[in-house]
């Protein structure tokens, strides 16, 4: 039935890139890589999972043995090494189940808030029952002397066999255990589709069909397909059938583990959004409306996802930091869901928080979300002698893409000034576009306004291509992400670096000589750098060059968002502030300087410092480097 519902969904391009998908499958599914990101529960689950694989043939053996007491699988049933593996994994699985109960009943982590715990307990007991009956069956066979494998190869079963005599009771028990084992397995399989344990099938498939494209790239919508009539253009997810089959599969793959919830900065600061509850809400909606749709209920087709499956508040709380996607062991793509919900709200219904209205209008009319005149875009560079690339001129070796924030916000401006000075000091041949540089469209895209975003992408790509630009350096991770990962969809293929990557290279090559300092500096990883694009080491090279680095607990891919992503730079915040929480985390390190590599982070964290009264200095690594050059 699930397959039939998914057939009602929209298409998704996930059949390409087979080698990468196979690798994904091997590493994430088989290798349990993502679930092992948390080593305790990860190991617990991995052992149960690998145990299931190893023990799979025993299901067949048990069924044979249930029917014919004296038979077993040819060859495998007699192998000592196999018996050893079975024995070992049966014990490991049992131990893992105990560990699972310990986690759930004693530790009781907050991530389970909202999950269906009763169901999980039942499943764990079932698993325990299955492996226990297996061990006991083996034990009784050994006791009766009818084991087909050398008993010494299965130490646990062998030890247990001492509990049993050779008489009738054991004969009976042997039959009881094998039938119990088989019945437990069969009933388990019957229960499977109705529980979240279905993930043992769906996860395997979902991981295969997971994204192979860059994490920071959102999939474009198509507005001008000549074969699609205007009123059928997909504008994101408004109802169940607007969801792609991959999105539907996501929802039935969720195991309610709550790791996403645990790391969500919105949830952690008292907001309504939990990625887990979001996916569960969509799943429940699908399971409720899907069968109705299949039965021909027309009305079910029109039930809007927002607010029935997910509330407006939840949709807008997201900062697109990607912590949830990083944690998810079964490759659910929460951000894609949220952006698709936003797309429908914004584009089809023009329904979004009023405070984002000025920004949306400003991007379209003034070409930047600050609503300032593009004529003033290069004002920050006055007096610095920075080359502004005019139409028709020879392109520079590297185009410095400044971004709207550094052009118009006084705190972010310092980063542009520092970066320009550093590039000049290193003798890099660069230029800026000045007023011809429009917003990359990232805030519009993350708000769900794909239509406006694509207009800007097309315009910027045309400007860059006409100018003959091949290499770009950007001091904003959002610009960097969009230019590198999203503009290729619109004909823009450039070699794009984040300014920390270029500056780190220049430092390593000796073209920039920093003076090392003893000042303690803690570096805040930007979500769009570290999680979406794996830029983690280069900014640290710069921090190490000018001071003594000290890490926050949440760093690298575990970084905690500053709160500006997902267009939140322009939206109000309810509940506790995400940026203040991050500043608190930074202050805990005892460092005096909080280094950043993003203009949004600069502004958000500086705001956080002011409201919390901390005395941390927030500065971009480029500024710290520029200062150290001046001092040295």
């Amino acid at each position, binding site marked *: 039935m699930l397959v039939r519902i998914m057939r009602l969904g929209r298409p998704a391009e996930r059949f390409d890139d087979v080698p990468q998908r196979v690798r994904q499958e091997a590493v994430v599914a088989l290798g349990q890589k993502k679930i092992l990101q948390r080593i305790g529960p990860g190991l617990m689950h991995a052992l149960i999972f690998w145990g299931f694989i190893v023990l799979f043939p025993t299901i067949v053996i048990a069924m044979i043995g249930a029917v014919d007491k004296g038979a077993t699988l040819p060859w495998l049933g007699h192998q000592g090494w196999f018996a050893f593996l079975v024995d070992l994994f049966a014990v490991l699985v049992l131990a893992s189940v105990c560990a699972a109960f310990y986690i759930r009943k004693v530790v009781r982590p907050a991530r389970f808030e909202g999950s269906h715990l009763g169901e999980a307990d039942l499943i764990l007991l079932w698993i325990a029952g299955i492996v226990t009956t297996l061990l006991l069956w083996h034990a009784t066979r050994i006791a009766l002397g009818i084991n087909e494998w050398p008993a010494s190869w299965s130490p646990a079963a062998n030890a247990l066999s001492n509990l049993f005599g050779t008489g009738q009771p054991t004969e009976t028990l042997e039959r009881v255990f094998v039938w119990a084992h088989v019945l437990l397995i069969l009933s388990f399989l019957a229960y499977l589709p109705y529980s979240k344990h279905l993930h043992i099938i769906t996860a395997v498939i979902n991981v295969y069909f997971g994204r192979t494209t860059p994490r920071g790239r959102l999939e474009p919508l198509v507005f001008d397909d000549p074969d699609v009539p205007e009123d059928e253009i997909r504008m994101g997810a408004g109802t169940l059938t607007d969801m792609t089959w991959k999105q539907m599969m996501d929802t039935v793959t969720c195991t309610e583990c709550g790791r996403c919830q645990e790391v969500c900065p919105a949830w952690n600061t008292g907001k309504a959004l939990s990625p887990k509850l979001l996916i569960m809400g969509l799943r429940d909606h699908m399971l409720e409306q899907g069968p109705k749709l299949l039965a021909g209920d027309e009305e079910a087709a029109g039930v809007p996802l927002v607010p029935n499956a997910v509330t407006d508040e939840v949709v807008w709380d997201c900062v697109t930091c990607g912590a949830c996607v990083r944690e998810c062991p079964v490759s659910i793509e929460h951000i894609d869901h949220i952006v698709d919900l936003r797309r429908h709200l914004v584009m089809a219904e023009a329904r979004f928080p009023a405070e984002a209205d000025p920004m949306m209008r400003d991007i*379209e009319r003034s070409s930047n979300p600050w609503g300032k*005149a593009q*004529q003033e875009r290069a004002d920050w560079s006055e007096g610095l002698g920075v080359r502004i690339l005019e139409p028709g001129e020879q392109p520079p070796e590297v185009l410095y893409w400044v971004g709207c924030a550094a052009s118009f916000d006084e705190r972010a401006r310092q980063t542009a000034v520092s970066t320009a000075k550093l590039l000049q000091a290193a003798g890099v041949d660069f230029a800026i576009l000045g007023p011809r540089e429009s917003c990359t469209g990232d805030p519009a895209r993350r708000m769900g306004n794909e239509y406006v975003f694509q207009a800007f992408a097309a315009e910027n790509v045309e400007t860059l291509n006409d100018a003959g630009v091949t290499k770009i350096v950007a001091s904003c991770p959002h610009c960097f992400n969009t230019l590198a990962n999203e503009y290729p969809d619109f004909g823009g293929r450039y070699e794009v670096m984040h300014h920390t990557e270029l500056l780190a290279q220049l430092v390593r090559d000796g073209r920039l000589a920093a003076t090392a300092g003893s000042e303690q500096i803690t570096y805040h990883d930007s979500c769009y750098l570290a999680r979406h694009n794996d830029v983690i080491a280069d900014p640290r090279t710069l921090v190490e060059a000018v001071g003594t680095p000290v890490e926050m607990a949440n760093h690298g891919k575990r970084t905690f968002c500053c709160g500006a992503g997902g267009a939140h730079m322009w939206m109000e915040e309810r509940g506790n502030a995400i940026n203040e929480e991050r500043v608190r985390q930074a202050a805990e390190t005892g460092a005096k300087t909080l280094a950043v590599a993003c203009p949004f982070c600069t502004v958000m964290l500086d705001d956080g410092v002011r409201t919390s009264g901390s005395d941390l200095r927030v500065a971009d690594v480029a500024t710290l480097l520029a200062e150290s050059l001046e001092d040295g």
Partner: protein
Amino acid sequence: MNILVCVKRVPMTGGTIVLTPDEQAIETRHLGFTISPHEECGVEEAVRLIEAQGGESVVLSLGPSDAEEQLRDAMALGIDRAILLQTDEEFDGQATAAAILASIEADRAAGVEYDLIFFGNESADSGNYQVGIRVAHALGRPCVTGVKGITVENGRARCEQEVPGGRDVYDVALPAVVTVKEGLNLPRYPSVPGRLRAKRKPLETRSPKRTAPGVEKIRLKLPEGDTSQAEILGHGPAAAPAVVDVLRRAGLVA
């Protein structure tokens, strides 16, 4: 009901205005454009009235071919069709009114009569304050200006104008001309289906005749005295005493 809304394409200036070397216009390279703010509210009101009472709405602009952008924006909000009186020249208040009048009369000859015509009270750039009123007189229709609230019922328009302490109410019979001000409503954000439909909605281009100017521009210039920098009273909360000093000297503090 048939409603006509007249709009003007104006640039969105930033912190400073820059003139072209010949001092005849604003340097608009790298500036975005929009419908003049008062008129945006006129567009929204027209859409709402037609949604509520049925009929057709038309948006008109006197301007360059680029003004199509503003006409399509208006149609994306729900206006049914557009008329562009295409010209690259600047028309003064009288000439603008004459050109719009000619267009309305051409429509009348084709059998289209407007019950209500919306203008902005004044355009953001030239601020002539007269186009709507001139058109109204030429058509022999009542004109209420500075409208911040309007109700249309039983062939009459009840219009509200903001004055200190309250609102003045006018009650005129349709057909009428109304000049509106920002604050009349909050214009909606266009939906994408609206934008796509707008691309296909009819846009007719006409060639207006420019009558001899009554107020003829010689040149533009920037006001003086804006080049001095402010006196910095201080940084942060520490500046508070200095601020209070200024307030005291202004007679605001006893």
